[in-house]
């Protein structure tokens, strides 16, 4: 069934429209704006819900010239993400109503959150690469604003900037990948298109696309570029470092953006591209990336003391699990990814909301300061138990099933590929052990002894309690579905829905089902090892954590070592202001003149200009004398012992030039030059009267260096004159002026097509090229105004 264009467009537009009115609406509604947001999310959720069962593309033209449209594609994967975004959105907005009670900047907060939700829905449904990218970057920007919510805190600023830096930069790499795909699609599909999914899209022609990519040698680069984008967004090692800092955001943001939805964008992307690019290279890149992240982030989580930090690393780790799943080519891989997106969203959002409640009510987020909270927060403790055990991968909670699928998928791959691929299941188990450890550690804050420092902890308001309860209930139901399926009662709609997701990520004819293990499969054994080793190791948790802490304190291993080093250097570098922009006119002029000279010489050389043969040096003796005097004058200027002497010799040069003009048959020029030279002399004398005598004795090395620069300039000019005077262009336009300047022998009473003057130069100035003259007199007028301005504006105006 085709999806409904109207429904989808409204679902996507509603959050943006709501965002646009939020700043105003906030003045009316005040805090209740949170429920307005929840209502908007609910509307979107309902609208998207109506599209379950549909499949296909709807297109809204946007930039026809570039063949870009806001095409929306509906399939299992986009519906899954769309429902998670809007569904969790409802809960987050509701939760925020309680959580944000005393916080500043609520109007901005809700506006941005709504924009984010709209953008995230856009990411879910976009069928066009460019449209996808638009929404993708919008989520990064809203994330920046939300992480920096407490904008006067240095930590928030640092975190926001880091997140923006990594996600936007990663996005740019991805964009390059998209563009390469676009260009290649021209070869593969006949016409270049940005269309990814749907009819006529790249996925439909995956074979041709792969072939074209390979023949252009771009297959691996494209996979790598997309991997960078996905890794940046989904906090994969080594780009995971922004996610723990992002916890500076208010907790609803952490729950919404940084666990359930935005960070899923990268994962989603991998899933979306899976049918297009899934190959052995793909498998290698993403299985390695995913498992590495899963393990490293889980280890880091064990060392965390802040509960939000623990959850952040845990999020990265679970996203790694999903990526690894999508990386593996078998159907189990697809199922792992598809199912775990859902499971993770449910339990992790719930855990974040729990963390928010704890922080809000207990006033601290440090594990070392917390414990025994179940007495004060019994419902919260129950929620935490369901969610945390799911996270740990303990049967029969929801996370268990998707982790089983991952084990199955790794074993499957290892069995088929053999060799080093056996590392996959080993690493998966190894990482999962840490997952088990930190999950239990998280849960421990509700049990055991309550520290004395902790005062009575209030129970949270209903608006804050209900959302995690709903999430935990859903997680619980998914978990129970596995139990009942063991006895043959399947959670039909869910399994069917996951089927469609699996199909969307490239598996053909899937039959998804999940249940508790009923026989000793490799996966069941791996789960048993995980839980067993975890349980044995848990008593040594403190020691393990301190070992990890010591390890990550070593600089090259420190997660932020590279980022802080690079950005710290950038923020302080004086490489440009210190070495290039020195403020010395001398340096600037040298660069300018040498660059011009080398460009000219390069031009002559590369065009193979041959120096004209000089048969004889014929020159008018008068001219030679005049020019010789001019040179002597110029030399004298450079060696002038005083300003006055210099100016006087300078005017000798000027007068020689005037005589030269006479010899060159240019009386107008000579006259002008003569008079102008006088004026310049007067002007110089007037100004020099006020200036100090300053000669600036030249030191030898500097004179030599400047002499070399001058020589280069001089030689360039010398060559330029030689070469250009040798030119003999046919039909130079000057002839026209000579012919047309005067008055023809026969003429009527008006003359328009002749200049009508004897002085050709003047006729050119006032008629043929009067336009030049118009500009020129503007310059003179402006020179006058400028001089007035220079004098009358001094000491005035802005001081910086």
């Amino acid at each position, binding site marked *: 069934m085709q999806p409904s264009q109207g429904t989808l467009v409204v679902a996507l537009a509603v959050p943006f429209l709501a965002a646009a009115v939020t700043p105003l609406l906030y003045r009316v509604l005040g805090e209740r704006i949170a429920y307005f947001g929840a209502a908007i999310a609910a509307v979107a959720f309902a609208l998207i819900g109506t599209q379950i069962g549909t499949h296909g593309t709807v297109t809204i033209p946007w930039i026809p010239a570039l063949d870009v449209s806001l095409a929306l594609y509906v399939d299992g994967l986009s519906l899954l993400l769309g429902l998670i975004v809007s569904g969790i959105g409802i809960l987050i907005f509701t939760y925020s109503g309680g959580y944000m009670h005393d916080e500043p900047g609520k109007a901005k907060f809700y506006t941005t959150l709504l924009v984010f939700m709209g953008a995230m829905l856009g990411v879910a449904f976009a069928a066009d690469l460019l449209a996808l990218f638009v929404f993708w970057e919008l989520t990064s920007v809203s994330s920046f604003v939300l992480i920096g919510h407490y904008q006067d805190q240095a930590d928030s600023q640092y975190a926001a900037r880091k997140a923006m830096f990594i996600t936007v930069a990663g996005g740019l790499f991805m964009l390059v990948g998209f563009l390469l795909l676009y260009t290649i699609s021209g070869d593969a599909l006949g016409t270049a298109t940005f269309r990814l999914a749907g009819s006529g899209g790249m996925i439909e022609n995956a074979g041709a696309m792969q072939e074209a990519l390979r023949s252009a040698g771009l297959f691996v680069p494209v996979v790598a570029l997309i991997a960078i984008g996905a890794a940046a967004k989904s906090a994969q090692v080594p780009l995971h470092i922004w996610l723990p800092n992002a916890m500076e955001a208010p907790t609803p943001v952490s729950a919404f953006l940084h666990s359930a939805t935005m960070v899923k964008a990268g994962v989603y992307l991998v899933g979306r591209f899976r049918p297009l690019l899934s190959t052995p290279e793909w498998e290698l890149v993403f299985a390695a990336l995913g498992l590495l992240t899963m393990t490293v982030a889980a280890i880091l989580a064990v060392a965390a003391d802040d509960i939000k930090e623990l959850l952040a690393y845990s999020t990265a780790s679970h996203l790694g699990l999903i990526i690894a799943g999508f990386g593996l080519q078998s159907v189990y891989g697809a199922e792992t990814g598809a199912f775990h997106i859902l499971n993770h969203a449910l339990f992790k959002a719930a855990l974040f909301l729990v963390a928010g409640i704890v922080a809000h009510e207990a006033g601290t987020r440090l594990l070392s300061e917390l414990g025994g909270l179940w007495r004060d927060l019994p419902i919260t403790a129950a929620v935490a138990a369901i969610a945390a055990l799911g996270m740990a991968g303990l049967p029969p909670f929801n996370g268990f099933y998707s982790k089983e699928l991952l084990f199955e998928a790794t074993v499957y791959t290892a069995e088929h590929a053999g060799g080093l691929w056996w590392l996959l299941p080993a690493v998966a188990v190894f990482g999962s052990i840490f997952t088990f450890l930190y999950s239990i550690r998280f849960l421990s804050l509700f049990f055991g002894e309550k520290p004395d420092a902790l005062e009575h902890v209030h129970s949270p308001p209903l608006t804050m309690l209900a959302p995690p309860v709903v999430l935990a209930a859903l997680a619980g139901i998914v978990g129970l579905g596995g139990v009942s399926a063991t006895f043959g009662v399947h959670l039909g709609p869910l399994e069917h829905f996951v089927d469609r997701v699996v199909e969307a990520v490239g598996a053909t004819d899937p039959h998804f089902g999940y249940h508790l293990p009923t026989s000793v499969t490799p996966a069941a054994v791996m789960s048993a090892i995980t839980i067993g080793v975890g349980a044995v190791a848990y008593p040594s948790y403190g020691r393990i954590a301190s070992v990890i802490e010591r390890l990550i304190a070593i600089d090259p291993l420190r997660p932020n070592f590279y980022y802080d080093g690079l950005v710290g250097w950038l923020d302080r570098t004086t490489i440009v202001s210190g070495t290039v922009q020195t403020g010395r006119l001398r340096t600037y002029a040298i660069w300018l003149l040498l660059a011009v000279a080398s460009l000219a010489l390069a031009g002559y050389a590369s065009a193979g200009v041959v120096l004209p043969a000089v048969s004889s040096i014929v020159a008018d003796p008068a001219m030679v004398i005049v020019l010789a005097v001019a040179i002597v004058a110029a030399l004298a200027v450079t060696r002038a012992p005083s300003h006055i002497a210099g100016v006087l010799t300078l005017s000798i040069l000027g007068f020689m030039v005037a005589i030269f003009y006479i010899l060159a048959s240019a*009386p*107008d020029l000579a*006259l*002008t030059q003569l*008079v*102008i030279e*006088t*004026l310049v002399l*007067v*002007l110089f004398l*007037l*100004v020099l009267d*006020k200036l100090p005598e300053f000669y600036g004795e030249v030191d030898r090395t500097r004179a030599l260096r400047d002499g070399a620069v001058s020589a280069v300039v001089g030689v360039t000019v010398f060559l330029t004159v030689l070469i250009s005077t040798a030119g003999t262009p046919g039909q130079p336009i000057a002839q026209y002026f000579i012919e047309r300047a005067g*008055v023809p022998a026969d*003429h*009527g*009473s*008006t*003359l*328009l097509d*002749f*200049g*009508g*003057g*004897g*002085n050709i*130069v*003047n*006729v050119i*100035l*006032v*008629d043929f090229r*009067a*336009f030049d*003259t*118009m500009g020129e*007199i*503007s310059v*003179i*007028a402006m*020179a*006058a*105004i400028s*001089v*007035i301005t220079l*004098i*009358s*504006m*001094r*000491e*005035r105006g802005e001081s910086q």
Partner: protein
Amino acid sequence: MSSEPRPTDGDTTVIARTITRVVVPIIMLVAIALLLQGHNLPGGGFIAGVLTVTGFALIYVIYGLRYVEQELLHRTVVPRSLPISEGAAETDVDPPIIKEFGEIFTVGLALAAASGIVAMALGFPFLSQGVWFLAGVPLYGHMEVASALAFDLGVYLVVVGGLLTILAVVGAE
């Protein structure tokens, strides 16, 4: 040094002053001749303009700026401690003489531009020029009128006004 007599004032000799008195009118005459004949013989707005300015410059160098203003242009001299204070005169942004010069080049620019726009109004492209031959003019008999003269006059005025402004401002300091 505004209203103070310039140090050079005392230094200029009687000979210099006398020569100036003789030479300057000649310069002015030559300048006007150059302007008018520029279309046919060496000359034109530029040359005439710079020559006129030179004449003024000569007087200025020999006699000082005060003389130019008071005696030649009949302007009262205000202490020219630029920048002029805002409160002094609401409408005067420039000291008096510079204002006059400013008007000269403004008029010159306007004249030049207007001559171009008139051509547009007559259906020709911007800055088109023409020549009219008039028969039966008294004394001349046959006379040619070039529209370019208006443009050239504009050029002349801009050069005179602009350069004098520069000289006056620099000299006033």
